[in-house]
C-alpha cells in the first residue's frame, strides 16, 4: 500500500498525479473464502478489516450488490456520539467512538473526524428530567457529557433562538464534546483500502441471492456472479436484513423504513456543533464544505424505496427555522432517502443465529454510522471466535425471547 501523506502528495505532484495506485482492487470473486461478508457498507468493510487486522483472517470477501458505501453509509448525516442511556449501549458506542478517534491514523486515510460537540436540546420539564438521568448515567459509564444552561447554549451556538417566547423554548441541553461528525464516504473508503491491503477481496456489483446451508450449517452464498463457498457468512446489509434473513429461513424483529436527510447550499461557517432536538424533531450540523446537514425522524411506513414523503421534510424544516430563525433564507439544495432497519427496542442485533456459521449485524435504525468501527470490531470478534465479545453479548437475537431488551426509546424518540 502506498502510504498517504503530505510528502507523498508532493512527490506525486511532480508526476502530475499519474502514479497513484488503486485505493482497492476490483477482483472477481474466488470460488471459496473462509469468511464472506455480505454488504459493502461501512459496517461490512470494517468487519472485514478487523477480521484481517485483529484476527488474522484475510481470506475474506466483501460482496456488495452496488458500490461500496452506497447504502446508509453514504446517505446518513454523519453524526458520531456515544451518549447512550444504558450500560450495554454506552459500552459499544463508546468503543466505537474511541476507535474513531484513532481511525485516520490507523487506516492512513483522513476520515475527517471533527469532534465539534453534539448538543441535545431539552424543551420541557420532562425533557429536563430525562436529560438529567441520561447525563448522569453516561458519566457513570465514564463517557463525557455535561448539562448546559440556556445562556451557555447561546454562547456555544449563537445562531440558536434561546427566547422563552418560542412555542417550545429551549430550557437546557446536554453536550458531549467528544461527539461530532466525520466524512462518511471516507470511512467506507478507508476501511476498504485497509482491508484490501490485507488481502480482503472487495467485490462490487455482486448481489447475494441465496444463503446455502447443509445440516444446520452455512456453506456459502449464491450470487449474481455465481456461487461462493464460505466457512462463515456475516450479513451486514442494514435496510435489507430481513430479505437476507429470509434466504436463511430466519425471521427478524425488524422493520425497514425510509429515513430522509438533506443539505443546504454551502455557506460560510454559522454553526459550530451538532444540534439535535427530539421534541421539535430535527437535527443539524454544518459540514466542512459549508452545507447544513439536516435530518429528522423516519417515515411511518415500511419501505425499501430510497425515498420518503414530503410532509416529513416540511415538518423538520419548520422545526429547524423555529430553532434557527436566521436560517430561513438559506436554501435546501438536495434531499435523499435511505432505508433503515428499526428494532423494537431501538438497539441493534449483533449476533449468532440458529444457523451455524451465519451471523447477523443489523437493526441499527437511524444511528448506525456512529457505530461503524465498533460494530465491525465486535462483529469480527463474533465471527472469528464464534462467540460474541462482552460488548455485544447483550445485543443478541435471543433477547427478544428472554425479554432482556435494551430499550433506548425512553428519551430518544429520535435515536441517532
Amino acid at each position, binding site marked *: 500500500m502506498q502510504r*498517504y501523506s*503530505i510528502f*507523498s*502528495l508532493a512527490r506525486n505532484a511532480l508526476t*502530475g*498525479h499519474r502514479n497513484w495506485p*488503486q*485505493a482497492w482492487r476490483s477482483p472477481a470473486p474466488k470460488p471459496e473464502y473462509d469468511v464472506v461478508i455480505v454488504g459493502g457498507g461501512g459496517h461490512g468493510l470494517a468487519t472485514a478489516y478487523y477480521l484481517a487486522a485483529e484476527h488474522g483472517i484475510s481470506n475474506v470477501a466483501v460482496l456488495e450488490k452496488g*458500490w461500496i458505501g*452506497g447504502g446508509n453509509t*453514504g446517505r446518513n448525516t454523519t453524526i458520531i456520539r456515544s451518549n447512550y442511556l444504558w*450500560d450495554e449501549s454506552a459500552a459499544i458506542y463508546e468503543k466505537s467512538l474511541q476507535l474513531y478517534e484513532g481511525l*485516520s*491514523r490507523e487506516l492512513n*486515510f*483522513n476520515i*475527517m473526524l471533527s469532534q465539534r460537540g453534539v448538543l441535545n436540546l431539552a424543551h*420541557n*420539564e420532562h425533557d429536563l*428530567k*430525562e436529560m*438529567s*438521568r441520561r447525563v*448522569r448515567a453516561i*458519566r*457513570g*459509564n*465514564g463517557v463525557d457529557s455535561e448539562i448546559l444552561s440556556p445562556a451557555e447554549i447561546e454562547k456555544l451556538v449563537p445562531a440558536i433562538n434561546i427566547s422563552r417566547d*418560542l*412555542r*417550545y423554548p429551549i430550557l437546557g441541553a446536554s453536550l458531549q464534546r467528544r461527539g461530532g461528525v466525520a466524512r462518511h464516504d471516507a470511512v467506507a473508503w478507508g476501511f476498504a483500502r485497509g482491508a484490501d491491503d490485507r488481502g480482503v477481496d472487495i467485490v462490487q456489483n455482486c448481489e447475494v441471492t441465496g444463503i446455502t446451508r447443509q445440516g444446520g450449517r452455512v456453506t456459502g452464498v449464491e450470487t449474481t456472479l455465481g456461487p461462493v463457498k464460505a466457512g462463515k457468512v456475516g450479513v451486514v446489509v442494514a435496510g435489507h436484513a430481513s430479505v437476507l434473513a429470509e434466504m436463511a429461513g430466519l425471521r427478524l424483529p425488524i422493520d425497514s423504513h425510509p429515513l430522509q436527510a438533506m443539505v*443546504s*447550499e454551502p*455557506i*460560510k*461557517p454559522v454553526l459550530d456543533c451538532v444540534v439535535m432536538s427530539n421534541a421539535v424533531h430535527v437535527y443539524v450540523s*454544518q459540514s*466542512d464544505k*459549508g452545507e447544513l446537514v439536516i435530518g429528522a425522524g423516519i417515515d411511518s411506513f415500511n419501505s425499501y424505496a430510497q*425515498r420518503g414523503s*414530503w410532509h416529513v421534510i*416540511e415538518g423538520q*424544516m*419548520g422545526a429547524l*427555522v*423555529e430553532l434557527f430563525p*436566521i436560517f*430561513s*433564507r438559506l*436554501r*435546501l*439544495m*438536495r*434531499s435523499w432517502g435511505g432505508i433503515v432497519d428499526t428494532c423494537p427496542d431501538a438497539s441493534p442485533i449483533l449476533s449468532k443465529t440458529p444457523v451455524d456459521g451465519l451471523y447477523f449485524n443489523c437493526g441499527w435504525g437511524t444511528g448506525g454510522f456512529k457505530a461503524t468501527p465498533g460494530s465491525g470490531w465486535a462483529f469480527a470478534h463474533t465471527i472469528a471466535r464464534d462467540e460474541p465479545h462482552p460488548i455485544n453479548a447483550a445485543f443478541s437475537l435471543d*433477547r427478544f425471547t428472554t*425479554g*432482556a*431488551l435494551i430499550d433506548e426509546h*425512553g*428519551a430518544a424518540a429520535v435515536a441517532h
Partner: protein
Amino acid sequence: MSGPQYRLPAHVPMGGRIDRETPLAFTFNGETFTGYAGDTLASALLAYGAFPLARGFKYHRPRGIWSAGAEEPNALVQLETGARTQPNLRATQIELYGGLAAASVNAWPSVDFDLMRINDWLSPIFPAGFYYKTFMGGGFGAGRWWKLFEPFIRRAAGFGKAPSVPDPDRYERMNAHCDVLVVGGGPAGLSAALAAANRGSRVILADEQAEPGGDLLAGDRAIDDAPAMDWVAAALEKLGSAPEVTVLGRTTVAGLYDDNFATAVESVGDRFGPGAPAHLPRLRLWRIRARQIVLATGAHERPYAFPNNDTPGVMLGNAVRHYAGRYAVVPGKRALLGTNNDSAYRTARMLADAGVPVTLADARETPPAALAKEAESAGATVEAGFAISAVLGDRRVRGAKISRILPDGETSGAPRVVEADLVGVSGGWNPALHLASHRGAKPVWREAQACFVPGDLSALGVWAAGAATGAETLADCLEQGYAAGRDAARAAGRTKRTRKPVLKADDSAAQAPIQPLWAVTSRRPGGRKGKAFVDLQNDVTVKDVALAARENYRSVEHLKRYTTLGMGTDQGKTANVIGLALMGMESGRAPETVGTTTFRPPYTPVPFGALAGRDRGALFDPARETPMFDWHAANGAVFEDVGQWKRPYAYRRAGESLEDAIDREVRAVRDGVGAMDASTLGKIDLKGPDVATLLNRVYTNDWSKLKFGRARYGLMCHEDGMIFDDGVTARLGDGHYVLTTTTGNAATVLNWLEMWLQTEWPELQVFATSVTEAYATATVAGPEARALLSRLDSDIDWSDEAFPHMAAVTGTIVGVPARVFRVSFSGEASWEINVPAHYGLSLWQALIDGGATPYGTEAMHVLRAEKGFIIVGQETDGTVTPFDVGMGWAVSKRKDFIGKRSYSRPDTARPDRKHLVGLLPLDRKIVLPEGGQIVADSEQKPPVTMLGHVTSSYRSPSLNGGFALALLKNGRNRMGDTVHILKLDGGADPARVVEPVFYDKDGGRLRG
C-alpha cells in the same frame, strides 16, 4: 466600470423582452449600474462586459457568467444586505428591480483581488480528494493536524453568508389539485396545456421564468410565418380565459413524489425585492396533487471542456444567443463559437445579425452545408473539423486557440489563434430529466444524440414532451407537447375529442448528427497546459476525473463523491454528463455503463422559509388551552408544556419564588383545600354490553365486579408487559363507563382501544368516544374540600357515607350537570368535578371564590410522590412492569390480558429486577437530583456499577425535608440499606432505602 457598452443599440431588432423605457438602477459590489425592466441581474451586468464577478470554489480563479438560467454554476451572488440578505443566488435567475443591491461571494478581500488565488498556484499538491491523503496525524498524535487545519478549510469553504437576524418575510403554502400539471412554459409546455385545456381538464401550467415562452423568448423563431412570441401571447390568452386553467408564472416545480404529488415554489413578493407590498408573501409553496403530469422542462446545453474554459467571457453558446435575442446584450466585440452540433448556428446567425464578427469552429468535418452557407452568408466564418483548444487571458478572454480535432478528443497539428473576447461553447444538449428521475425514471442513453433521455413513465401518469425528450426541432416540440397534453387529459378521464391545430414551424430542413466531444485536453503525458474544468462550481477538472479512475473510484457515485463533481448548488446540470463520459473514456466504458446519477429533489434550491411556511412562532404547533386557561393566565400561572397542552406548573404570587409557591400550594392541599385544573386528563366514554370484557383485556386487573357508581384504578400494558398508561375508570350505568388516561396518552389510548376493537375483537359491542374536551375537570382536594363543596348549590350529597372514596356520582352543580368522581392522587379527600367545558371557567371561579387555593402540576407531583403514586413516564420508561413498581396487587392471575404472557419470560420473571423504592437522604436538608444514578460503592471509578436511578425527588413541606422515589435493582430486598446517589460534580449523597409511601400510610386521610 464604463457604461453599458455591450448593450446593442435600440435600432438592432433584438432584445424583445426588455423595456428600454424603464431603466432600473442597481448596485453590484457597491458600484452603480443601470439595466432595464425585463433584465436579469446577469443580463444587466453583461451589458457592462463579461467581467469577473465571482471566484471559483477551490482555486479562486476569476469567474464570469456562464449561462442564462437555472444551470448557472459560476455567477452566485449575495443579494441585498441585513435581514433580507440572501446568499448564493444565481445572477441568471434574479429579475432586476430598481434599487437592487448584490455582491460577490467567496472572495477576500475582493473579487478583483482574491488572496485565496494562492490555491491555484499550489494546485499541483491539491488534486481531487487530496484531503483524504493528509492531516492523518503524524507526529502530533491522532488527528491533531486535522484539528489544526479544519477551521481554515471551513472558513475557506462555503459561498455566501447566512443572514445574522431573523427573516422578516412571510411564506405561504397552498394545496392544489388538477387533472394535468404541465411543467414548463416553452413551446412544448404551452402546446400541452392547450391540448389538455381543450378537453376541459383542470390544468396547472408552471413556468419558472419571468414570462413563459422558453426558448422562444430569444425572439428568433417563427410559427406560422409570424414571430413565435405572437403564438406564445395567443396561447397565454387562450389559457387565461379557460376557467379551469391556472398559469403559475415564476414558479419552479422543485420535486415530484409518490402518486404525482408535486411541489413548486412561486415567487410572489420576492421579485420586487425589499420594497415588496407588505401583505404579499415572499414565496408561495404549491403542493400540487396532479392526476397526470406533463414534463416539458426543456434541455440544458452542455459545453465541452478545454484549458482555461473558466475564463470570464467563455459562456454556453445558447446563452450567448439568449442574451442577444432576449436582452440585447452581446458581451464581446468579436466572438468565437465552438460546437459539435447544429444548435450553435442559430447563435452564429444571431451574432452576425447583431453586427458582431463571429468564427464558428465546428468539430464535425462536414457540417450541414445549408446551415454553414446560411451562417457564412450572414457574415460568420465556419471552421469545420476544429474545436476550441485553449483560451487566452486570465480575468477576461483575450483570444482563443482552435485546433483540428480527432474523434478521441486529441488534437492534431498546431493550434490557430483566433481573435475573440467572447467564446461560446456548444457541446450538445442534456434533456432536463430531473423531475422524471424524482419519479423513478431510469435515464436511457440515446447514442444518436449523445444524451440521456427520460425512461417511459406513462404508467405512472407522467408524460414528457419537447426538448425534455431530446426533441431538436420546434415542430417536434409543438407536436409532442400537444400529444402529451392530449394523452394526459385522456388518462385523467377527460375524453372529449378535440381537433389538433396545424402549426408550421420555421425549422431548417438541414440537420446533421452531433459528434460527441467531451474535452479537448490531451490525456497523454505532458499534455496540454491549463486547467480544463468539468464542474465549474466545484472546480473539478478533466485531470481530476482521470485521477478518480486511476484510483478506482470508478462507479459514478464514487466519482462524484471523491471529486465533488456535480455536488454544487447547480447539482451538476452542465457537468454530470461530461464527467460520466470522461470516466467512461478513462475506464474504457460507454457512458451508459458508467451509470447515471439519480437526480434528487429539489430541481433548484428552495428557501427553508418556503418549506416551513407559516408554521412559525405561535402557529408552529397548537397550544391547547383548557376551559380555565384565561383564569390561569391572568393569575400568575407559570405554564409548562405537556404535549401540546399548556398546564399551570404553579401559581406564583408577587414576591414569591417558584419553590415558595409550590410549598404554599402543597400546604394548602394538606391543610385546607386546593383546586387543580385536571381538564387535560384523557376521558373516554365507553358504551355497550361488552365494556367490562374489554377492560379485562386491556387492563391488568379484574373489572368483572365493578358496581354502578364505583371507580377503580387500572394499569395498561403493551404486549411486552411494560406499563404504558394508567388511570381510573368509573361505571356510570348499565354498559356505560368512563375511562381516564394520562394527559399525554389521551389520543394514544383511544387509538389503542379502537385498534383492538376493530382489528382483533370485532365481536365486542363497545363504542368508545373521547369526551376529554367535552368536560372541564377540576380536582378539589384537602381536609376542607368537603366543606367547600357542600357550600356549592348542588344536589350532590358530599358526605362520606353517600359519597365514599372511589365512588362516582352524577348530579347538578350550580345549575349545570356534573360527573363527580371521588378519587385521590394527593392522598387527601379529593373530588374530580366534571362539568360541560363551556362552564369550566365559571366553576373554577366558584371554587376559588369558595376558598380553594389553586395548585399546579408540580405541587400535584409532590403530593402524589409523598403517597408513592407513580407517574407514567416518570417512574416508568417503557421497561417497567406492574410488579417492578410494587403493583402486583393490580395484576390479575385469573384472566388473560394484554402483556400477561410476557411476565413469565426469563428476564421479566427475575426477582432482582429494578423495583420502585423510596429514598430518604441522610441529610434531610438536601433534595436528591432527579435522574441521579444510584451506586452501592461511592468510591468506585467510572465505569461504575449503577443500580438504578432517582425517578422523582422533591422537598416536602409535609415531611420537612427531601425525599425521593427511585427504581433500584433488587430494591425490595434492600430496605433499610444505605445507597449513594452520584453528584454531577463528583462525590455522592447517601440515602436510606425505604418503602415508597411517605405520608398517611394507612390512607385514612383520603378516605376521611
